[in-house]
């Protein structure tokens, strides 16, 4: 086996390990780690081809790898910033807490109530407003229950709306009841 083939096989193995990590882990940080490993494997390929290919004095593969390292650093910074933001919103880095864009049956009543609540909250304080906006976006997850609850604490004129929101978020997802109960226990 030629040295180049050895390096290419190692790079393929590293890429597969990174891919397996990105596909099987639940923690968003470890998904990013898997992506970093895949980028590293690609760099190894570039360097190996530069070393054993023709015209190494032209530096093409080496420069490509250096730029790839720079882009990977930028990707890591932005990715970990996004993970930190995700943790601030969802209080977890579990990727299953971030399935809001997955298609889910939401009835029209839900939208109406949420938009009505947002309209009302423009007269309220900014905290209630932001919570309302968040609960509009995050329908059906555990967070919504918690936020709807804190929304109820914000003002008594929300009582009617909150009752409906609770009903929605309990219906919205199986297990929603548990999430709501957990939120109630936390506070």
């Amino acid at each position, binding site marked *: 086996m*030629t040295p*180049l083939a*050895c390096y290419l096989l190692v790079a393929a193995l590293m890429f597969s390990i990174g891919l397996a990590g990105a596909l*099987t882990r639940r923690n968003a940080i470890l998904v990013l*780690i898997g992506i970093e490993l895949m980028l590293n494997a690609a*760099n190894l390929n570039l360097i*190996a081809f530069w070393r054993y290919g023709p015209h190494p004095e032209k530096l093409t593969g080496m420069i490509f790898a250096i730029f790839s390292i720079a882009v990977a650093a930028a990707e*890591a910074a932005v990715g970990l910033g996004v993970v*930190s933001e995700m943790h601030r919103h969802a209080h977890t880095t579990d990727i299953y807490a971030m399935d809001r864009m997955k298609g889910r049956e939401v009835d029209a009543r839900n939208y109406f109530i949420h938009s009505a609540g947002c309209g009302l909250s423009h007269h309220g304080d900014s905290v209630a407003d932001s919570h309302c906006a968040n609960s509009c976006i995050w329908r059906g997850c555990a967070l919504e229950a918690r936020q709807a609850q804190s929304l109820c604490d914000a003002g008594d004129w929300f009582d009617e709306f909150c009752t409906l929101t609770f009903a929605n978020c309990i219906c919205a997802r199986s297990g929603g009841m548990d999430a709501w109960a957990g939120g109630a226990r936390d506070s």
Partner: protein
Amino acid sequence: MAYEEREVRAMSFIFYVLTALTVAGALAAVLLKNTVHCALALSVAFTGMALLFLNLDAQFAGFAQFMVYVGAVAILVVFAILLTKGSETPTGGVFSRTWLMGLVIAAGVFAVLGWAVMGSMKALPQLTAVPQVTVLQIGNALVGRYVLPLEIVAVLLTAAMIGAVIVALHERSEVAKEGQK
């Protein structure tokens, strides 16, 4: 000829050691339960990769890998883990519900890549002359032929840093509200 043979074999021994180090680090980074241990294993894998670069006579890329990955990205990952309390093992397990599918996909990708490499072994270039590359040459190439990509990467890095700060910036009202609670 004998000298050539011996040299190749010595190189392969180092290569196997470095490969074992890198692959073991990567496997540990992917498989371990504790996230902090994963980050440590990740830095081992990055170090092994940098040593493989050095073994390939790419000194500049190897040291860039050391500085950027082992020095910056691994530290960034540790920071992210500690800031997000990611070191706590989640109750639902560390692997996703579709882990078997992910494993099968990864194994399939490795099989296809390995098959492609083994199949094209004859066509792969086999030059073994060690390229003599100095940092001066790399610098000249960066500000000569590759000056446009260099500038674009500079803009990209600046934008990424600003974007990361903006994304991770806490809003004042939220912080105040957290304090009230």
